[in-house]
């Protein structure tokens, strides 16, 4: 083994290293606590959110974007909480906060713009799929989609030389990136990302689909969510919306496809519905990142 002399990396080590450097803003924890408290009013929640002005502006722009279709009628966080819902707004706040957490990744390793373009597109496609399936609370699909490759960012910040090697190896051997990771490290970026979200106490309906987005049939609790993210990831790869460490389409999990109950004729409609939302949502979420 050419790499026998390299240290053995584990998911726990990665999570540990990441958590010492990067953390979710304290505010997310307060927001979560407030939302879970039965006696919290909408005013209380709005007060916590408005303490962060950047986030407030972003959430308001999101609420007024084509994603929701209220077209400029949501002028206060109070209104946004009422219309969008508390849990949904918490999920959106989570996505908006995480996007600002990882900084300092060398652009030659990974372009952040391209990475987030892929991620936001995946979130929007997942949300569109969920809307089509009439799922309650589609925002969790949106957020799980945005965060699905967060493990790649963890690895790019903690072990950049290894990531560089993995990317080159994956491209030269023509083996998908996540399988190259699994072969070399014993885990892939999905495992790492899922573990990080769990350690951040992100709800399981977001963390589990992230962890299993390459093997949705292994998701025990939220297989439908995992299947949705899995398919959305493939769609974004195929349609060339941004790019991450992956260079090709990962294999399709046919059981996940069956679970979604879709006809392949539906794909064009889903993409057509999602596409107009991509640019604006992307620019709102990445502003200042």
């Amino acid at each position: 083994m050419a790499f026998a002399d390299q240290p053995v990396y584990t998911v726990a080590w990665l999570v540990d290293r990441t958590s010492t450097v990067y953390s979710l803003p304290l505010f997310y924890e307060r927001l979560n606590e407030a939302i879970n408290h039965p006696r919290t009013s909408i005013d209380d929640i709005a007060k916590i959110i408005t303490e962060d002005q950047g986030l407030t502006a972003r959430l308001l722009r999101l609420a007024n974007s084509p994603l929701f279709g209220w077209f400029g009628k949501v002028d206060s966080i109070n209104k946004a909480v009422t219309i969008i819902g508390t849990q949904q707004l918490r999920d959106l706040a989570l996505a908006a906060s995480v996007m600002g957490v990882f900084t300092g990744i060398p652009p030659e390793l990974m372009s952040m713009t391209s990475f987030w373009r892929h991620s936001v597109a995946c979130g929007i496609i997942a949300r569109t799929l969920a809307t089509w399936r009439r799922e309650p609370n589609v925002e969790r699909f949106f957020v799980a989609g945005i965060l699905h490759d967060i493990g790649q960012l963890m690895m790019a910040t903690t072990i950049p030389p290894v990531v560089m090697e993995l990317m080159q190896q994956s491209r030269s051997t023509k083996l998908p990136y996540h399988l190259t990771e699994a072969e070399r490290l014993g885990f892939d970026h999905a495992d790492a990302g899922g573990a990080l979200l769990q350690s951040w106490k992100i709800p399981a309906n977001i963390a589990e689909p992230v962890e299993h987005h390459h093997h949705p049939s292994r998701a025990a609790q939220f297989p439908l969510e995992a299947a949705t993210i899995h398919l959305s990831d493939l769609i974004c790869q195929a349609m060339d919306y941004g790019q991450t460490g992956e260079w090709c389409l990962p294999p399709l999990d046919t059981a996940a496809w069956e679970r979604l109950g879709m006809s392949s004729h539906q794909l064009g409609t889903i993409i057509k519905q999602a596409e107009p939302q991509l640019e604006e949502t992307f620019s709102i979420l990445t502003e200042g990142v």
Partner: protein
Amino acid sequence: MGMLPIDSLEVGMVLANDVLDRTGRMLLGAGAELSQKHLTIFRTWGVVEADIAGIDYVNDESPLPAEVDPAALATAEEELQPLFSYAGTDHPALRELLRLAAIRRVQHGLR
């Protein structure tokens, strides 16, 4: 009989099977001849395909947008092959994704 995507359905075609909406509610029964109004109603209720009688081949591709040249599409599909090299295109969903990706490539001039 053959499953045709909604965009390939034409007035006068005869249904081989019932058309249901997404919740399983019946919209039109087998044997009915399609009229323009039926097609509008199918679209309104999110029907994506219908089983048509008297078609002995399965053409499961929607018609190409008018501005897409079939030759350019074939070239684009060829260029996209490396992207699909591992996943393959045997599964109908992947086959359709390749087609959609190629159409997008031609439309956006990403060549």
